[in-house]
């Protein structure tokens, strides 16, 4: 689960990391008021940032600087309500604009191959780490945390020296260790600060200080760990979720909407992906990924069917069940129930094999369902049915 930047900032700060002040605003008036405070506090400008969970906020015009409260409010008016990659902006973050001397990247991820937490750093801040890794792999510094002891002091120092942060050693070490600690404390699978910056601040008597600060924050939480983190589950942004996703999660279904016309209902993630691949191979396009899970009962099948049909693009449905724990006859009964409740008539091709497949076949035949036995045949029939439905429409 991705967190909004302001939530991610909270988590970093709770781990003791230096994150400058911010506020969250939902109206242009609130943006202006926040700006008044920061400008009075000595900031020369404020930054207004759209709070959405998609990347590319800056390029889309969702991050802007303002020199006075009126300008800040005007920017707030422009950003609040704009759409960034299909997501409407409902909140903005307002913060004093930092006087940046140099930008760095620092991020922690789970390295699957090494089975360690990997801390990555680069002296090219503000640039996506994937981009740096592609164009200048040697510029990415990598350190693996110890699986039981976390990021050790000497490892954090290695990172700091490699990034050229020797003059800010104590701060850099604390931030590096704090990032890994944030990850562990919150069961995150990504904690990223980009940019981490050396910021110049002037006191009222004119003296200048330089310090390292986290000017952005990105955190994603391991979905498997959410049951033990109700405080993080509470940060879920339902406004940014498709209603279908919310219903799928409530029913414990794994559902991802795609762009095609053939709805897929499958048990098992690997088989669900394969079914999508075979639809594509047969010349069609899958409308979704949907795994009804092991041991699914008829009510779950009915919910799955409703989710598929909530997508107006769906012209045919392919049901592919390999009964193991899941019983074929149970799914067949669920399909009949679902069809009875169905609001629009969409052709369906059903393949049920494995446990209780014979009973399922009898039930489906009696109810006049179109059935298939082979996987390839099922995909081809579903594509043909979608094409017929498309031609008729």
């Amino acid at each position: 689960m991705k967190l909004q930047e302001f939530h991610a900032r909270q988590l970093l700060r709770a781990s003791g990391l230096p994150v400058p002040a911010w506020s969250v605003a939902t109206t242009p008036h609130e943006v202006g008021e926040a700006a008044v405070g920061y400008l009075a506090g000595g900031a020369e400008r404020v930054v207004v940032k759209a709070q959405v969970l998609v990347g590319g906020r800056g390029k889309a015009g969702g991050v802007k600087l303002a020199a006075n409260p009126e300008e800040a409010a005007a920017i707030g008016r422009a950003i609040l309500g704009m759409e960034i990659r299909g997501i409407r902006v409902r909140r903005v973050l307002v913060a004093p604009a930092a006087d940046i001397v140099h930008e760095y990247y620092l991020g922690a991820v789970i390295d699957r191959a090494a089975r360690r937490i990997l801390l990555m750093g680069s002296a090219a801040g503000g640039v996506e780490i994937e981009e740096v890794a592609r164009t200048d792999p040697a510029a990415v510094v990598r350190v693996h945390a110890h699986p039981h002891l976390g990021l050790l002091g000497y490892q954090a120092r290695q990172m700091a020296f490699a990034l050229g942060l020797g003059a800010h050693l104590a701060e850099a070490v604390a931030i590096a260790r704090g990032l890994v600690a944030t990850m562990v404390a919150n069961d995150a699978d990504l904690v990223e600060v980009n940019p981490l910056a050396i910021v110049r601040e002037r006191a009222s008597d004119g003296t200048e200080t330089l310090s390292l600060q986290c000017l952005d924050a990105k955190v994603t939480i391991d979905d498997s760990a959410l049951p033990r983190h109700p405080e993080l589950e509470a940060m879920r942004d339902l406004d940014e979720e498709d209603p279908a996703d919310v219903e799928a999660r409530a029913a414990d279904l794994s559902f991802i909407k795609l762009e095609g016309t053939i709805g897929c209902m499958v048990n098992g993630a690997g088989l669900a992906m394969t079914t999508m691949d075979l639809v594509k191979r047969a010349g069609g396009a899958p409308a979704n990924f949907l795994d009804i899970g092991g041991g699914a009962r008829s009510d779950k099948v009915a919910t799955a069917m409703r989710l598929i049909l909530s997508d107006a693009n769906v012209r045919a449905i392919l049901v592919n069940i390999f009964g193991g724990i899941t019983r074929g006859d149970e799914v067949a009964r669920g399909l009949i129930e679902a069809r009875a409740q169905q609001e629009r008539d969409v052709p369906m091709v059903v393949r049920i094999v494995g446990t209780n497949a014979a009973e399922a076949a009898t039930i489906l035949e009696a109810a006049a369902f179109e059935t298939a036995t082979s996987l390839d045949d099922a995909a081809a029939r579903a594509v043909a049915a979608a094409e017929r439905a498309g031609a008729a429409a």
Partner: protein
Amino acid sequence: MSILVGRETRLVVQGITGREGEFHSRQMQAYGTRIVAGQRPGKGGQRALDGSVPIFDTVAQAVAEAGANTSVIYVPASGAPDAILEAVDAGIGAIFCITEGIPALDMLKVVPVVEAAGAKLIGPNCPGATSPGRAKVGIIPASIHREGRVGLVSRSGTLTYEVVQAMSDAGIGQSTCVGIGGDPIHGLTFSDVLALFRDDPETDAIVLIGEIGGSEEEQAAAFAAEQLQGMPMVAFIAGRTAPEGKRMGHAGAIVSGGMGTAAGKVVALEAAGVRIAASPTEIPRLLLSAGVRPQ
């Protein structure tokens, strides 16, 4: 012979009194798997499976008193890491963790302990393993198998059953079928299992069922190129149509930053001489054309 499970398997079921644990224990026992013990803290001294299996409070007791050498875990995600570590500490050699939904950071801590002890962990979030005609451990349906000489390793559950069924229908039997699990951090990798098949005199060919995410298929390709020349190998990779950045059901099945794509895995495996099936139904045909004989 066979790998990981066989006639020598003496199984302790951790969580034998739970709904899943009991159901699958009956299936395993019916298949001929020797279940020597069940474990459930607080129920030591009782018996499970119609009185045929003693229950112990700890895995250590199951090892000392019943001679268990293999464990299978059906306990909920919150207790599963502890169950794995308990099995390791008791000296169990092969631990199958069926449980899904264990946080990745828990597994990051558990896996090094398993490795340091020299034990083998299969899973978590895996269907287990079956050596047809000998024993099955986990949840793979018994009916799909046929005895034979092709080893199969997979990251998936029902997709594995699909492929095994297609092989059996074509008369191609299996030496052992192993599901290594769909989570990002798990025990045995594809390459680990390939090494076991390489050393198994009763495995003549290998089927690998991979999917998007991570780099284990690429590592398996490198291993095959170096270590498995002369052993026919067929692979299928699921998720060619999966969009980037979305977790496709399995926590491990996600393409990120252009890494872990199906196309990249297919290229790596083909370069290593592995035959790629475009559909699971093609696998038997590719095995036959590679010289595998039906039995």
